[in-house]
């Protein structure tokens, strides 16, 4: 039987082979169907995410001006110097690191670290070498000699410029790089890792107005993260302009007087605040010593910051609101109003101050002179300590006068705003201390003594106030009984010039005191200037006010430098009625506080704050340019 000539063909194997083809293509097709049809949209999104990157475009920060539009903070161009590692030949690395370090004032090792780290991460992405903006001259120096700086690029950026620097730093504060913690909280609001944020002062409080609306740019990028082209652009919107209630002219007058005093070493620190008693607008706020907030704007160095922190005068603190001091005799206003309001005293309550001192249970209390017979107005005008000891706690000088007591003084003190922050639009406000027996028991674990009452009556002892609290209390007397919330924000203007609606300034409370008593206080304050402690020669304005001298340190002797060991701070709080009467018409009230005036070696110096106040107010109100 002849062999089948085609026996070499195994049909079943061919069928199996055909089946294998079918299986392979079925598997490929099913998988492809799943990827492209079932999950096509998902992968399409992924490919777009690959390709398209939305980059934020920073908005310029809004400016800050005084009430007349004088610019206090604006932005100027600065420069960022970066290196793109891929554009830097390795053979020139060392040379560049040294040159760049020298130009930017950085160790070349630090430059090398930054670049090498980035080379590992993403060599196509520029990395910033100097964290702080680079000045124009250095930036131009680099771009002009580009051949010496391979791989280096210089980009413009915005630097905050504080026009008057130190003069306004206590009010305006500064911006600084956002911290990691803040970023966690603010990322949802569009903050970015290399953003600046208001760190303190107005910059911090009104961050929401000043920070603009960031735009974005959609770019197409390749796998190496290089930008190919811009696909879409949303322009950023500049931040709003914040208009302050500050009057730059008054601020500069106040600052010049106080700074002169510090320079001449008549006192070591000074605070001056002026406000409109009729609405709580702050017209000027000076705290000396301050600091140049431009240092922060351009990136403060470690040594600069260390120097500021080492200064025991605490230049970073705005002492108008951030620190508290004994009020001294200015506090007699509170004692007086308490006694008048409670009816334990009237304008005709007389005390015969026949001696300079008296003793109660072994402690001696002094006045600065034996005044003779005083009524309320002369007692206040001459700032008799014994008169107000009597109103507060009763003394042997006037057995028929009952002391109003510490609880009442605390009650009216709190009504006038002491012991709690005023709520001004500045951060880190101190609350001060308005003591009473309960407070002493709770904090000192000791019962209140009559001596405490006497000290409280003249603003010594436990009483602690901020300059702003004291000013605001006097302003409420000057305006006829409304305690306004002091504020710095006058208006917010959008980039188009429209005013952004703001909440109206509001009073904290109406004083629960009679107009008659408030008028008596204004009259007495005027008498302080005309016949009393703050006599102003050649006065051209009907200024009213009250002096204060808060003592600290040892009670006698001099230190090795020949300085009085008994140090004292001086206060003068003034307000200017529209006419020389006791009507509540004042448009301006001002406090000046000079810290540690004891440097002047005299024993009985005239309070320096009085003369300064007269010059400032007369120049500001009368010598208009």
């Amino acid at each position, binding site marked *: 039987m002849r062999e089948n000539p085609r026996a*070499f*063909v*195994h*049909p079943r*194997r*061919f069928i*199996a*082979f*055909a089946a*294998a*083809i079918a299986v*392979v*293509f079925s*598997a*490929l*097709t099913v*998988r*492809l*169907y799943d*990827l*492209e*049809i079932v*999950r*096509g*949209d*998902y*992968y*399409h999104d*992924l*490919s*777009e995410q*690959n*390709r398209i990157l939305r980059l934020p475009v920073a908005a310029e920060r809004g400016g800050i001006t005084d009430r007349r539009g004088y610019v206090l903070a604006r932005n100027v161009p600065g420069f960022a110097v970066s290196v793109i590692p891929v554009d830097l030949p390795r053979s020139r690395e060392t040379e560049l690191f040294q040159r760049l370090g020298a130009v930017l004032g950085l160790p070349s090792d630090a430059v090398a670290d930054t670049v090498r780290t980035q080379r590992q991460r993403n060599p196509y992405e520029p990395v910033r070498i100097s964290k702080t903006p680079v000045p124009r001259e250095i930036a131009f120096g680099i771009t002009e000699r580009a051949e010496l700086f391979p791989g280096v690029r210089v980009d413009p950026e915005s630097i905050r410029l504080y026009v008057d620097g130190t003069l306004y730093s206590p009010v305006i504060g500064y911006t600084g790089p956002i911290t990691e913690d803040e970023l966690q909280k603010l990322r949802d609001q569009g903050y970015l890792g290399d953003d600046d944020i208001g760190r303190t002062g107005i910059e911090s409080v009104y961050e929401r107005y000043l920070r603009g609306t960031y735009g974005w740019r959609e770019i*197409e*990028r*390749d*796998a*190496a993260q290089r930008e*190919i082209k811009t696909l879409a652009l949303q322009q950023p919107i500049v931040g709003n302009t914040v208009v302050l209630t500050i009057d730059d002219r008054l601020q500069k007058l106040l600052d010049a007087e106080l700074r002169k005093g510090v320079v001449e070493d008549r006192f070591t620190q000074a605070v001056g605040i002026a406000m409109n008693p009729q609405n709580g607008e702050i017209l000027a706020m000076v705290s000396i010593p301050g600091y140049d907030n431009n240092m922060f704007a351009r990136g403060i160095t470690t040594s600069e910051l260390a120097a500021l922190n080492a200064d025991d005068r605490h230049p970073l603190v705005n002492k108008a609101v951030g620190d508290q001091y004994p009020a001294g005799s200015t506090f007699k206003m509170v004692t007086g109003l308490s006694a008048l309001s409670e009816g334990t005293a009237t304008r005709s309550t007389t005390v015969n101050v026949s001696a300079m001192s008296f003793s109660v249970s072994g402690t001696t209390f002094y006045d600065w002179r034996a005044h003779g017979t005083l009524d309320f107005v002369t007692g206040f005008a001459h700032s008799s300590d014994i008169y107000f000891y009597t109103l507060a706690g009763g003394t042997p000088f006037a057995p028929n006068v009952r002391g109003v007591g510490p609880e009442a003084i605390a009650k009216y003190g709190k009504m006038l705003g002491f012991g709690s922050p005023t709520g001004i639009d500045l951060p880190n406000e101190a609350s001060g201390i308005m003591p009473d027996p309960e407070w002493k028991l709770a904090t000192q674990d000791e019962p209140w003594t009559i001596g405490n009452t006497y000290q409280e009556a003249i603003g010594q002892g436990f009483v602690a106030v901020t300059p702003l609290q004291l000013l605001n209390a006097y302003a409420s007397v000057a305006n006829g009984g409304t305690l306004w919330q002091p504020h710095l924000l006058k208006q917010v203007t959008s980039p188009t010039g429209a005013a952004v609606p703001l909440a109206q300034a509001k009073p904290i409370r109406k004083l629960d005191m009679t107009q008659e008593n408030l008028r008596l206080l204004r009259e007495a304050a005027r008498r302080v200037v005309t016949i009393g402690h703050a006599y102003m020669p050649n006065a051209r304005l009907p200024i009213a006010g009250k002096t204060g001298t808060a003592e600290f340190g040892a009670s006698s002797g001099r230190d090795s430098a020949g300085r009085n060991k008994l140090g004292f701070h001086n206060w003068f709080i003034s307000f200017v009625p529209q006419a020389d009467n006791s009507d509540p018409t004042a448009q301006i009230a001002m406090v000046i506080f000079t810290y540690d005036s004891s440097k002047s070696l005299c024993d009985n110096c005239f309070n320096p704050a009085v003369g300064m106040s007269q010059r400032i107010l007369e120049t500001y109100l009368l010598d208009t340019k």
Partner: protein
Amino acid sequence: MSVRPLAIPHPATPLHDRPVARRWTEIDPILLIVTLLLIAYGLVMTYSTTAETRTFTGDPMQFVIRGAIWAGVGMATMTAVAMFDYAWLGTFAPVLYLVTLGLLAIVLQFGTASLGAQRSVNIAGLTFQFSEVAKVLMIVVLAKYFADRRARIGSPLVMLFGMALLAPAVFLVYRQPDLGTSLVFIAIFFGIAFLAGARMWQLVGLVAIAAASFPVIWALLKDYQRARLSAFLDPYSDPQGAGWNIIQSLIAVGSGGATGKGLTAGTQSPLGYLPIAESDFVFAGLAEDLGFAGAIILFALYIVMLFAALRVAFRARDPFGMLIGGGIATMLLFQILVNVGMAISLMPVTGIPLPFISHGGSSLVSICFALGVLQSISMRREPEGP
């Protein structure tokens, strides 16, 4: 009987016991048409993947022109090969075997390194991937080997000697290193042995031995090959490293959707997310540009070509022709499976070109050579009829 063309010791057509006629009418028209369509498809994809490329510089049309020139060379080769009786290949099989090993040795010795492997040789400014040629030559050698031992196909010794024949080539390719192509050689061996009628238990046994020796193979693999295998199992374990290609390829394929983003409109490959988009990952670029529809058209063309090749093999006049046809079909099927499978993460990443679609002259001309052999087999089959 009839006039012999050449007076050499062995007859020029020694394996034919009956006259063999070259009949142009018996050329396989379906195979020819599908070949031309696939070549055209390949040129379109060359245009699409290089049109906006950032990997190359210069005029994108230069790649299309170069591809067209190679296509012309390929078709000339195919025609020339078809004219000759494939039996000649059998006559010179031992020589071809030595040529195969020689070419692979030359690559190892004088090859140009690229992407960490030494796979090509530069001659006169042109780059040749000799392993592409070697695959086709090896098909001829193995087909001849098994055709001649048809009577003793059940003997394990035949299998062992066959493997011994194969081993040097696999080793040389693996040393380049080119794991993918060495796997193609092994696949060809299995395909030819299978159609030659090798015992199933032997074939299954070989696969079982290979599976059992996986730990040994794993130890022999290079680090990057192990990384690729790990990445295949879980691309997201190293998304920026070994898993990158797989993830980006999946994104490219998936983002194509039903009908694709359009020719040259894909973004994954022009922007560099998809590496080696004109060759290894060309299918991902195709699926992104032309979508599911484009891929299905490609699959259809492949299926037609594979069945045409199988039909040629089935109708071949002798075992040698049948096994060559089977070997060519095996090679095509395996390369398609591995290349497409890699792009859609059904297979680990290996650098095997996708027939006709991957950009590259050596691959195209080699395949055209193989298809010329197929046409030669088709033209010389026995006339049908009683």
